[in-house]
């Protein structure tokens, strides 16, 4: 595409973002500020994720983009086409064939492998923002590891709801040090973060922060000893492929309230139905 640099961003910007990414990888879970650029999509639509992807993508990469687990929603399609046009790289819907995956709000069911990079779109990076509006103070809290208040939040949930009510964007402790928001993935996906072979990168465009979880890093969801972290379970299996171990979306099929449960991960579901394709 003429008039634009490879992957849209200029090289100086990519260098700046790569430096931020390196720092983030060196300090797992730590939020690194970066000079977020104006992108051809609005804040709140994945500008952070797009900038991270644009900075790490190379001509040999194979890109997959998903939104809530699906490759075919409007956002996923738009972003995938954006990169196709500005880089010319191959794109795919298959998790196992991708080298670079940008995601909004889900981690694929298919296990990732070493060498793959997953880029998460993050709305609010700061796990303590609910408690403390001042950035100066939250930075101090992270620096001094004063995470007692994070457990206050969980305590309140258990008190008010009998269990921790946070269903997504469930806070985690990375490498035993920093508390991090994993982006609004369902807590079902949290265990996948722990010791994942792939490199996990997190970009928040509006908030101008990048953080990372390097391969094989420990990621533990916060909980209490007598209220341990648990994930969602369904009575049903996927109506399309029969999977009993994937995250299911509830789909209303008619005006009478008829519903069915299907895998949120479209690629996983399709693979199970047609394994030879």
């Amino acid at each position, binding site marked *: 595409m003429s008039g634009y640099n490879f992957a849209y961003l200029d090289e100086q910007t990519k260098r700046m973002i790569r430096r931020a990414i390196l720092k983030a990888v060196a300090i797992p879970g730590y939020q690194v500020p970066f000079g977020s650029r104006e992108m051809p999509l609005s804040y709140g639509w994945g500008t952070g994720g797009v900038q991270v992807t644009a900075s790490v993508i190379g001509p040999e990469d194979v890109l997959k983009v998903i939104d809530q687990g699906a490759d075919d929603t409007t956002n996923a399609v738009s972003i995938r086409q954006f990169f196709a046009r500005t880089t010319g790289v191959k794109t795919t819907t298959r998790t196992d064939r991708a080298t670079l995956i940008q995601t909004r709000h889900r981690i694929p069911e298919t296990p990732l492998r070493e060498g793959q990079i997953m880029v998460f779109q993050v709305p609010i990076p700061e796990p303590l923002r609910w408690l403390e509006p001042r950035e100066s103070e939250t930075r101090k809290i992270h620096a001094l590891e004063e995470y007692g208040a994070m457990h206050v939040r969980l305590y309140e949930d258990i008190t008010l709801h009998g269990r921790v009510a946070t269903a997504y964007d469930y806070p985690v402790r990375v490498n035993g040090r920093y508390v991090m928001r994993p982006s609004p993935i369902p807590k079902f996906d949290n265990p996948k973060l722990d010791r994942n072979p792939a490199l996990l990168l997190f970009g928040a465009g509006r908030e101008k922060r990048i953080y990372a979880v390097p391969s094989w890093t420990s990621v533990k969801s916060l909980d*209490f000893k007598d209220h341990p972290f648990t994930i969602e379970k369904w009575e049903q299996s996927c109506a399309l492929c029969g999977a009993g171990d994937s995250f299911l979306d509830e789909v209303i099929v008619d005006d009478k309230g008829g519903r069915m449960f299907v895998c949120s991960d479209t690629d996983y579901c399709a693979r199970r139905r047609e394994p030879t394709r």
Partner: protein
Amino acid sequence: MTPMPMTQVPLLAVRGLTKRYGERVGCLDVGFDLWSGEVLGLVGESGSGKTSVLQCLAGRLEATAGCADFFQRDGTIVDILRLPEAPRRRLARTDWAMVQQNPRDGLRMGVTAGANVGERLMAVGERHYGRIRREALDWLGQVEIPQDRIDDLPGTFSGGMLQRLQIARCLVTRPRLVFMDEPTGALDVSVQARLLDLLRGLVADLGLSAIVVTHDLAVARLLAHRLLVMKDGEVIESGLTDQVLDDPQHPYTQLLVSSVLQP
């Protein structure tokens, strides 16, 4: 005649504490020892410097000069005026506590009473919900807050109850040194008596040391073992509470004592 042997080390030894605001003096060359289990009252009128002393020791203001040696739980002595921020904040969460005049400044109004009391426990690593809740219930009982209010937000509490909640929140990690800034200042008179009684009891039962800033001599007499009388930033008289209030030596102290209205 042999003097009584001083084999112990004071919990806090303050020397030459000075705070200047440019030309103005907050406090000047203040020194005292605070021993374990002792309550020291800092009394004086507005502008006497008593609050400057407290804020410097509690780490909220940077002192201009002086030192304050604190005898830590592990037996080491550290100058708290020169402590870097990280260890100072850690001490402030564990071994010290600050009871503010306005309890809203010392509480999280957006979380339940139980969470307020349990927070310091969680901050020092307690990870068992059941235990945290049990301790919170126990402390609510100790400060005479009905236990069925544990899940209520503090916004629904009266002033006296808020102050008692703040005290519970502060004491849950059993700090050895408590700073109190006009603890009954924001309360109705009828409520003050109850709070003072509670504080007296807790100080005695828990063997706390405390530095209490107050302009109210009745509060000082009730709570403090010893007094420092301050005027214009300086300590002008000190001694046993009953001695300073019953036989004041300094003209200003005499004025202060004789000015107290008797209903």
